[in-house]
């Protein structure tokens, strides 16, 4: 990857199109006569495209809906409203078979390499599962050869093929997760905090591996993370989420050097810089309070109760999603 973002030709169809996507979870109350009393608006109308071969970062704090967004895009949760198209296939409202076919092409890498691998399965069974499920390689021998190949690809010794997950370190487990995601030869991978459970020295190994694989197989990534430094490093464009909505989206250097939304500004200023002199010289924006509940999100702009530049109309009117300069989108009245 170079520093310049890939400029897709205008006629090229984006690989992934997300339009006004919503995902609400019902909140129920009562033990015997359970009734719905409201809903958690985890994702409340997000839109973006991801071009083939691109890495889009989706960042935000816990509870902002980034993980739910990733899972809903893959059809792992039913869509409440809006649409998602991957390689021209609609994700919502399709049959099980169609969804399964889609899953071959759209995979996910999970955050926790401890919880996401079945402890009773060998590496061979874990990595080979997509090959079995999608009936890609019928006979055991061919499947085993493919698992062998995948292990080499992610830097695991094929000698370990019959081992169980607990025999591997965190970094190695995440490599197993990457190999499993690659097994069905996907185009698109949702990476849900793939490195946040790993130590710094291991993070770099996994990130470099993912970049090599992206280059080698022309993969498209949706990279969900809260580590804003890592996102700047590996993503081409970055979308910032707050309480179920995207507040800003731009090419990475534009976003980090010229953040326009007050939430993005505060978020970036809160990230510690590993340079004590810069760190002391820096002006920080400390946001008051916590993220409000997504059950009853604030009216108007959802950020208004914590916003340092809030005006009266921010509480009443939802800000429009506007393109301020080429490719730089923001939802704020004051920009």
């Amino acid at each position: 990857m170079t520093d310049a973002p890939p400029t897709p030709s205008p006629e090229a169809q984006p690989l992934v199109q997300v339009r006004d996507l919503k995902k609400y979870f019902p909140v129920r109350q009562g033990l015997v006569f359970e009734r719905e009393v409201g809903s958690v608006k985890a994702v409340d109308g997000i839109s973006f495209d991801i071009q083939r071969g691109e890495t889009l970062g989706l960042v935000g704090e816990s509870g902002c809906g980034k993980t739910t967004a990733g899972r809903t895009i893959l059809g792992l949760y039913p869509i409440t409203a809006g649409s998602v198209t991957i390689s021209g296939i609609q994700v919502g409202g399709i049959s099980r078979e169609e969804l399964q076919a889609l899953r071959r092409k759209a995979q996910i890498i999970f955050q926790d390499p401890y919880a996401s691998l079945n402890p009773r399965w060998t590496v061979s069974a874990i990595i080979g599962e997509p090959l079995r499920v999608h009936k890609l390689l019928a006979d055991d021998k061919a499947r085993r050869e493919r698992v062998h190949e995948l292990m080499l690809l992610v830097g695991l010794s094929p000698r370990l093929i019959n081992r169980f997950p607990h025999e591997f370190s965190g970094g190695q487990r995440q490599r197993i997760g990457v190999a499993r995601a690659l097994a069905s030869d996907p185009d698109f991978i949702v990476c849900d905090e793939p490195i946040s459970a790993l130590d710094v020295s291991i993070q770099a190994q996994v990130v470099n591996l993912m970049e090599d694989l992206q280059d080698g197989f022309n993969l498209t990534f949706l990279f969900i993370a809260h580590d804003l430094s890592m996102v700047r490093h590996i993503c081409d464009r970055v979308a910032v989420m707050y309480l179920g909505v995207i507040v800003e989206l731009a090419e990475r250097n534009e976003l980090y050097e010229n953040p326009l939304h007050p939430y993005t500004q505060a978020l970036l200023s809160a990230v510690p810089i590993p340079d004590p002199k810069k760190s002391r010289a820096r002006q920080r924006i400390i946001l008051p309070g916590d993220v409000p509940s997504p059950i009853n999100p604030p009216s108007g702009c959802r950020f208004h109760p914590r916003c340092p530049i809030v005006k009266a109309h921010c509480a009443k009117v939802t800000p429009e999603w506007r393109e301020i300069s080429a490719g730089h989108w923001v939802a704020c009245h004051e920009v």
Partner: protein
Amino acid sequence: MADHILEVNDLRTRFRIAEGTVHAVNGISFWLEPGKTMAVVGESGCGKSVTMLSVLRLLSIPPAEIASGQVLYHGRDLLQITEREMEHVRGKEIAMVFQDPMTSLNPVLTIGRQLCEPLRVHMGMDNRQARARAIELLDQVGIPDPAHRLGDYPHQFSGGQRQRAMIAMALACVPSILIADEPTTALDVTIQAQIVELVQRIRENLSMAVIWITHDLGVVAEIAERVLVMYAGYIVEEALVDDLYEDPRHPYTIALLAALPRIDRRRDKRLLSIPGAPPNLLVEPKGCPFAARCELVFDRCRVEMPPLIQVGPNHQAACWMDVTSNKPRV
């Protein structure tokens, strides 16, 4: 030494488990000045938490075993005093804040009750005094409407508020040392920024010494005056914060800094990745623990652990190689 509020000498902590002996801390020495902030940085399993738990005698023995060492607090060896005396030191003199405030708070007691307990036990306050002080403490750590929140249970607090409550508890008896073990790791960055600011403000107001344990080199740059870098149970580098980032002298520190993505710079290259993984602590340490992953390794590294060598004023590194010239030290 008079200007050291805490001095640890040759501390060795091991765990005897079914699989063998875990060599968690392998003879480390350090000191802390009153009113200063020292960071201990390292990755999982490097021994940073075990060191502090050993200092406060919070490990269960067995399986833990403190094989050697001295922990001098105001010149008195905490490893030699009785458990009763130690109880007095913990909380009143040296307080600790842990990573996960949800598991270190008692879920079935109100915040007020948990906050008042140390005040009654260590400060001899009655209920009314303790309550008044508890309100003051919650206010000090920035919890809005503190009198009302005393009756709340931990689950009614947000993650950031729970960590604030933990800090309030740690401050209850105005300790002279606060040990913070990854206090912001479970929190979001904007909340982390609030907590970092809070601890710095309190440290100044109470002229308290702080030991901040973390794996995050960004946080270290922000809070510390002096830094210890730990790896596999050893201190491999010790320096003032500016020197550590500008002129790191241990290959592990150098590699760690190069492996970090930077939010303040445009991407110019791939991240440097450190091959391999930290050593198995069940194996008796021999030579430098970083030798297997080190670019500058030579024969001596594999057989003999280098001591901390003075490489500059207030700067020590445990490496047989002089990284500025790439020549072995003699």
